[in-house]
């Protein structure tokens, strides 16, 4: 059910998912442990994307710029200015927010295909900017955040984000916060208005809502989550490069969300997880793995346009948020 406070069932399901993720780290072999860490960070990215695509009905083709803004906002300050990790993370999120404010101010005047093109162009400009500023970003080649840079003091302890255990739990913490925020937000009055905008924007205006302002706030929140994912990605895995600003990284969250189920809270995690393993397994057999990914997506769109959880919600579990 949308637009109302989470029921006990909903709280239970999300609690169980987070608990399962917490326990999995003790069971999983090192390889899958590493993959799941990455998937959780990417799921944060997808969750942010889903707020705009799934709940507000705005299809952006430029979200890589928000991911990359977070990545560079954290990476550059930690690398060049030797900022401590938490400050770097915050500066990454703020960079994403600032970029979203500028892009949103202009792009939200358009809708539909025009919005896709405008966001894609902004993202392309951002990508070129990361190449242009190669003195600082080292462009395509990127730069590595050394283990020393990724240590942070917590009271008397020093946590190294290069350690798998720390990495896993940091990713889980971030994902947990974003997931809970998403569930809460979707059930809030504001979430209901966003869904109304997706369904019928004109009617929403005639109920007295400033739809532009609501879309702007949705974009800010979406971008903040995506930037947080980018910042975490850089800080946890220690590499910052302009590949993350390419169109490929704008399309990815779209695919994850569509696969898992747009406008479902757990769809982004499920989609990112499935896609990551799909690519991982397929690339073991063939270098043309993207061909098969594409094929699977076509089949998915034809038969399950609402994604895995969206279809499940339609057929069986109507209470799924």
């Amino acid at each position, binding site marked *: 059910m949308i637009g109302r406070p989470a029921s006990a069932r909903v709280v239970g399901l999300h609690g169980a998912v987070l608990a399962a993720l917490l326990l999995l780290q003790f069971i999983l072999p090192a390889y899958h442990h590493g993959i799941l860490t990455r998937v959780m960070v990417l799921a944060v990215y997808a969750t942010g994307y889903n707020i705009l695509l799934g709940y507000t009905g705005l299809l952006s083709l430029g979200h890589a710029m928000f991911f990359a803004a977070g990545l560079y906002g954290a990476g550059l300050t930690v690398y060049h200015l030797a900022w401590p990790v938490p400050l770097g993370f915050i500066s990454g999120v703020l960079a994403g927010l600032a970029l979203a404010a500028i892009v949103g101010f202009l792009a939200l005047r358009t809708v539909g295909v025009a919005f896709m093109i405008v966001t894609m162009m902004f993202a392309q400009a951002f990508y070129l900017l990361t190449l242009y500023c190669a003195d600082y970003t080292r462009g395509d080649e990127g730069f590595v955040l050394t283990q020393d840079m990724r240590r942070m003091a917590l009271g008397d302890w020093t946590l190294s984000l290069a350690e798998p255990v720390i990495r896993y739990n940091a990713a889980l913490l971030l994902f947990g916060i974003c997931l809970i925020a998403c569930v809460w937000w979707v059930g809030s009055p504001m979430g209901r208005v966003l869904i109304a905008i997706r369904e*019928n924007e004109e009617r929403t205006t*005639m109920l007295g809502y400033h*739809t532009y302002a609501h879309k702007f706030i949705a974009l800010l929140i979406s971008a903040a989550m995506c930037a947080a994912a980018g910042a975490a990605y850089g800080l946890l895995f220690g590499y910052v490069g302009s590949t993350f600003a390419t169109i490929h990284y704008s399309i990815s969250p779209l695919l994850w969300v569509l696969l898992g189920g747009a406008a479902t809270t757990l769809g982004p995690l499920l989609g990112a997880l499935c896609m990551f393993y799909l690519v991982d397994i397929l690339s073991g057999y063939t270098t043309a793995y993207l061909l098969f990914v594409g094929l699977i997506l076509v089949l998915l769109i034809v038969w399950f346009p609402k994604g895995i959880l969206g279809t499940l919600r339609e057929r069986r579990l109507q209470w799924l948020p």
Partner: protein
Amino acid sequence: MAAVTPLLATHDLSRHFGGLVAVDHVDLEVLPGEIRALIGPNGAGKTTLVNLICGRLAPSSGTVFFAGEDITHHPAHVRVGRKGIAYTFQMTSIFGNLSCADNVALAAQRALARAGGRHQTRKHRRAALSASITEALDRVGLADRAERRAASLSYGHQRLLEVAMSLALQPKLLILDEPTQGLSDGEIENFCHLVKAVVTDATVLLIEHNMPVVMALADRITVLHHGAILAEGTPEEIRANTAVQSAYLGR
């Protein structure tokens, strides 16, 4: 007689679409608490006029006053959300994928926010919202369908849901654009009772083609012809007006 401030007043209001004059220098005054019917042949400019009033269209010239305030340059969401003008669409416009309760909730939470509900506790707010939803659905007789998907309702019930959404906005002025279109006779009768009940706390501007409904409900009638006001008066006066008869009633 001391003049009462009209709730709604338009001064010299016009709107052209290219060379077509849809609304032509209209001076309309609606007093608080009345049911005003707006009638006229197809293409007379009725819907265009109310679109100018609720802000979905900008006028080519002229001004719109609401409760004495010039609202000509206020966007639609301000007129609806803050000033208290509710517009019920001529073509049914609801959120088909949401439940009836969610449809009404969207309107109700806007009205509560306007009334200053932000300062109350969460629990209080939620209770007020739920009460407001139930009340609005109750008034149109859809309370037992609250959890149904709006798109699964019959056409007549969808129209009533629209009205419920407008009621939940707790408007000062309720604009109903051909509300009885597609309703059965029994539903029309219930609808007339509903409008009479509404008018105790709101003013109603009613666009309607169904003459028995207009004659039964309206305190005053304004006849629009070719975008201009042809006549205005009580139902009896309008019925007796020869100009109206030739232009509209075709007699």
